[in-house]
């Protein structure tokens, strides 16, 4: 078993799948010879050949439409969008086509495409390299949405996404690509290799889609988080000295309602954290679910800690980012009730 960064783990997942099945192909801007601007596909073209791993023209709509056609043939394309911020041109092919192909063809045609995209802030990317657009895609019937928070999960979830028979949006927290984020923006990043928890098994293993993980067991309050925010939530619980039950959702659609219900029924309190803007964010959906399923168990109003309803700024990204202090404050508020 090796210790790996998330980039290496994602690379290993694609390598395993390219090796196991001749139907898997990897395509996207700069993913071939160069191995991707974040290096996630490094070495894959050399190993698997140019018709299995290749650079595309710069056209997200084109990449998506071509991936749907390849999937209709029977391949399993893994398409990289260089940044999640650039998925929007692909939206028609993604939302109107890939998501509904199975439905509209009575199940005869399907689009088992995996769309990989680095998302989130914390790298001084300004308003076009920092967005968290996951909620948009959770609103689309027919798509699954997955977001890992550790190298181990990244590999296992990506393998499941590629094996899944439906189109999967796979958002990669780029803040975690090259080392874990301790949750605090003002402290140095420790490489994953120094964290025993980041050991990643060789070969094939799958983490089922739709299953959340408990990253910290507690009894006082439930924190629902995913991606980078899992690490911020851990830091916040430490800072606030609250015995939090922290659930890493891992898959947003289908979401693990059982894990959410079990935890909130146990704790009676719920804080929801995401980096995306607040209004209409996935936190709204989670909040509604908790209200529907756990209303009689709640001892305090549900709290949401999110990015602000502004585009992502460049100089003020740490004022934008929901850091541990803001989460800790929410934790104290719900504990007072």
């Amino acid at each position: 078993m090796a210790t790996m960064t998330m980039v290496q783990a994602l690379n290993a997942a694609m390598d395993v799948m390219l090796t196991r099945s001749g139907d898997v192909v990897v395509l996207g801007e700069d993913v071939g010879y160069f191995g991707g601007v974040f290096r996630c596909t490094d070495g894959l073209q050399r190993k698997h050949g140019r018709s299995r791993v290749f650079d595309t023209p710069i056209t997200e709509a084109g990449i998506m439409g071509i991936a749907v056609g390849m999937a209709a043939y029977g391949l399993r394309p893994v398409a990289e969008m260089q940044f999640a911020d650039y998925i929007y041109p692909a939206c028609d092919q993604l939302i109107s086509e890939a998501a509904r192909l199975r439905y509209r063809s009575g199940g005869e045609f399907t689009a088992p495409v995996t769309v990989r995209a680095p998302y989130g802030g914390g790298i001084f990317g300004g308003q076009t390299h920092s967005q968290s657009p996951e909620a948009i895609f959770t609103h689309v019937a027919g798509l699954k949405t997955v977001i890992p928070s550790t190298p181990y999960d990244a590999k296992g979830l990506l393998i499941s996404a590629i094996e899944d028979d439906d189109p999967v949006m796979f958002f990669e927290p780029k803040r975690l690509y090259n080392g874990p984020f301790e949750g605090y923006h003002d402290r140095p990043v420790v490489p994953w290799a120094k964290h025993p928890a980041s050991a990643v098994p060789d070969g094939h293993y799958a983490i089922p889609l739709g299953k959340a993980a408990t990253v910290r067991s507690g009894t006082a309050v439930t924190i629902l988080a995913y991606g980078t925010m899992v690490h911020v939530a851990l830091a916040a619980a430490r800072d606030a000295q609250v015995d939090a039950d922290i659930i890493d959702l891992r898959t947003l659609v289908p979401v693990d309602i059982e894990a959410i219900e079990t935890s909130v029924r146990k704790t009676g309190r719920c804080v929801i954290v995401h980096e995306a803007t607040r209004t209409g964010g996935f936190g709204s959906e989670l909040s509604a679910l908790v209200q529907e399923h756990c209303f009689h168990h709640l001892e305090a109003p549900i709290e949401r800690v999110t990015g602000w309803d502004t585009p992502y700024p460049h100089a003020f990204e740490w004022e934008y980012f929901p850091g541990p202090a803001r989460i800790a404050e929410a934790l104290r508020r719900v504990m007072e009730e």
Partner: protein
Amino acid sequence: MDAPVPVRAPLSLHVPEPPQRPGSEIDFSTLAVPPAGTARRPDTDCPAADMTDLAYDLVRVLDDQGHAVGPWDPALSPDTLMRGLRSMMMVRAYDERMQRAQRQGKTSFYMKCTGEEAIAVAQAMAVDRGDMLFPTYRQQGLLIARDWPLVNMMCQVFSNAGDRLKGRQMPVFYSSKEAGFFSISGNLGTQYSQAVGWAMASAIKGDTRIAAAWIGEGATAEGDFHHALTFASVYRAPVILNLVNNHWAISSFHGIAGGERTTFAARGLGYGIPSLRVDGNDFLAVFAATRWAAARARANLGPTLIELFTYRAAAHSTSDDPAKYRPENAGAHWPLGDPIDRLRQHLIALGIWSEARQEDLAREVAEVVQAAGKEAESHGTLDKGPFQSARTMFEDVYKTMPWHLERQRQQAGV
């Protein structure tokens, strides 16, 4: 007995590969460079169908000795030529200073336009000050040629207290309505259809101003490029559609954008748009072609597509290492030379310039950039501030701040 011939040979995929990769000899010998002065110059009212050859030719004015030759020579005054040279040198010095600032941690990111200075500078000079420009991140020369203050640009790069974009945009994503410089997007290609929309609006209102847009050869694969050409052609929009073919889109060579099969200028032909292919390292050729296109647009004859044939000599950005995907120092071997060197050589050949005066100018430009740099840093840098108040983060999202943003601003404590 002969082996049986398979009825159907297996199909295979062609994935374009550049002729050279790291470690191989730099070789541009297969590049066809026609001699300067040979491309014909049609009248500005020439129908697109009668000039299709120019989408495959290469408009060049400056020959190897620095003489201006052929029908495209714009016969510029010494004063104009000298202004062009000075602006190009300013762009290069500015780029070097800002790249250094990035390496020193004073900003997060920077993008140089080394080797492409003639494009933005000559084009800015060939249109009117009132015309609206829709640039990419590699046309800082437009602002510099329009004498927009360097300090102002630098403050944006530093996201500091003097940043007119209030710390919101990534470095180099300038915006100045006053300078006729449209706000730069990080999303490739979106400015192209917007430029056509602006030009159509100008025509609807009976205005006299035209628009100009720039796009990289890589980004021509985006839908916006094609939407723009369709509208520009259908409505004969008064717009100059510039396409900078610098041969590389991050690590992907122009073949990945379709450059193996035909020229990028030829993309315009299918839309019935007159299309020129121009030596982008030749200040005079760029100026002349742009003037030609501007005259056409102003005469209600519609759009022109100009492919500016050049080479990205430096890295894509400060986040990029080109030695990973192309031979090191490839830009220095570009057969069409360096735009600044070529214009300098021309001025010397004209007898109105000398190496000594060139050195004086280089010194003067360096001093101007250095002084501007000092002044900009006095307003703050990204690593240390000062910045504007984080309160500005909540402004300009809407014209008036709605209740939920006002509440969030209070929660943020700013």
